[in-house]
């Protein structure tokens, strides 16, 4: 039992040495014929009956694999040496040391056939290049970074909304006329109605929309605004027929804030 264990231990060491030897020959690039393949194979054969567990068998397989690699190296070595190009490196180096620069240069010229190539500009390529040059945008334009434009916030005009297809011109005109009719109906015989009473609606969004439409009613001459500066009340007065804005009259703008707070106050007052 003790002897068997010793044999196994010795066999494992021998296999490891085989692996290391083959590996070092491959790594250092030394002559692979320094390895005696027959000897290594006999060692593997000698110890093979001892291996029982998978670990031992793996070591055996690894040793065999390394031997196979060494055989491949020997095969490549023979192939390389058998080619017409192979010359003993020592001989070549020796010759290189003894030859003069001039001799080496002259020898090289006998085996050198340089590539023939032209770099020539033709009149047509010049014309083509000139056209390209004219069409080429300047570097400061080509390399300009896209930057955000800083613009002042302002209200969008109806034309801009139509242009951006947010609203349709036809639909808007019709909507404006319906809105004008509603204004006239609400005013009745009183001639005017308080601005907030007309634009005010159930929701804030709807109120804003009505204020927006009202601004167009005034701009296009369907109605006008009257401001009671003492009471700070704005009235809206519809016309029976739209009045074109007079060219000779200076148009005045009347900014009316439609804030959420104001809408809420108006809504509370209406309930009271």
């Amino acid at each position, binding site marked *: 039992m003790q002897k068997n264990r010793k044999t196994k231990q010795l066999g494992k060491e021998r296999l490891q040495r085989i692996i290391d030897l083959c590996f070092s020959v491959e790594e250092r690039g030394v002559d692979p014929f320094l390895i005696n393949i027959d000897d290594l194979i006999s060692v593997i054969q000698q110890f093979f009956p001892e291996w029982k567990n998978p670990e031992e068998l793996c070591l055996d397989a690894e040793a065999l694999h390394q031997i196979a690699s060494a055989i491949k190296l020997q095969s490549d070595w023979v192939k*390389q040496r058998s080619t*017409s*190009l192979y*010359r*003993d*490196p020592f*001989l*070549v*180096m020796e*010759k*290189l*040391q003894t*030859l*003069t*620069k*001039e*001799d*080496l*240069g*002259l*020898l*090289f*010229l*006998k*085996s*050198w*056939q*340089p*590539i*023939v*190539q*032209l*770099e*020539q500009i033709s009149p047509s390529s010049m014309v083509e290049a000139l056209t390209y040059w004219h069409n080429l945008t300047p570097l400061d334009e080509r390399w300009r970074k896209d930057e955000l434009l800083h613009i002042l916030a302002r209200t969008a005009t109806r034309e801009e909304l139509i242009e951006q297809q947010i609203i349709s011109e036809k639909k808007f005109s019709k909507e404006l006329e319906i809105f004008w009719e509603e204004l006239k109906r609400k005013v009745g015989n009183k001639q005017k109605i308080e601005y907030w009473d007309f634009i005010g609606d159930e929701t804030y969004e709807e109120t804003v929309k009505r204020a927006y439409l009202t601004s167009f009613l005034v701009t296009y001459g369907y109605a006008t605004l009257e401001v009671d500066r003492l009471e700070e009340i704005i009235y809206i007065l519809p016309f029976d027929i739209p009045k074109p804005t007079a060219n000779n009259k200076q148009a005045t703008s009347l900014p009316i804030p439609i804030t959420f707070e104001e809408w809420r106050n108006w809504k509370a007052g209406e309930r009271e």
Partner: protein
Amino acid sequence: MRKKIYYVTQIKKAAHLLLFKRHRKPGVKGWELKKELGSDYSKILTLLNKYLEKLGLQIKTVFEGEKSPEKPTRAQLDKARFFVTLRGELTTKETKMMGWRIDDIAGLAITLSAIIAEKGKASRKDVEQLLRNKLPHWRVSTNLDRYIREGYIDQDESGFLFTDWRTRAEIDEKTLIDLILSK
């Protein structure tokens, strides 16, 4: 007659393609020739080669990889690079006109011989050591970099030098080694 005109035109076109510099690397790929000249470009190149012989020039083919196939397939030809090279030998006077000093040529000869002798791979340090015997120290590294830049040799990450595409196109490696050994 029509066929003759066709071939004359195609030969002229092939000469222009091969002789005028089109890319950073000289020469034309097989697929480019096929695109410009048609699938019978090999025949056109053979005719052009015959004409170039009179001028002391020749068409050379460099295939991908280190070895040239004996009977190249169409796919191999398409991937190969075609050049026009000198057919005969250059004189020292001619090399001076090309911008090569005798020192540079000798340096290239030593570098390539060392690489070929070392089975196609030589350490840059060893080659530099070899060159320092014959060239001023300051020229050694500059020259090696020039050979790399022009495609005669290449260097890998571990600092090993090996021959590159231009050596395969321009230099008869066997003749070079034979000449050095026979001297």
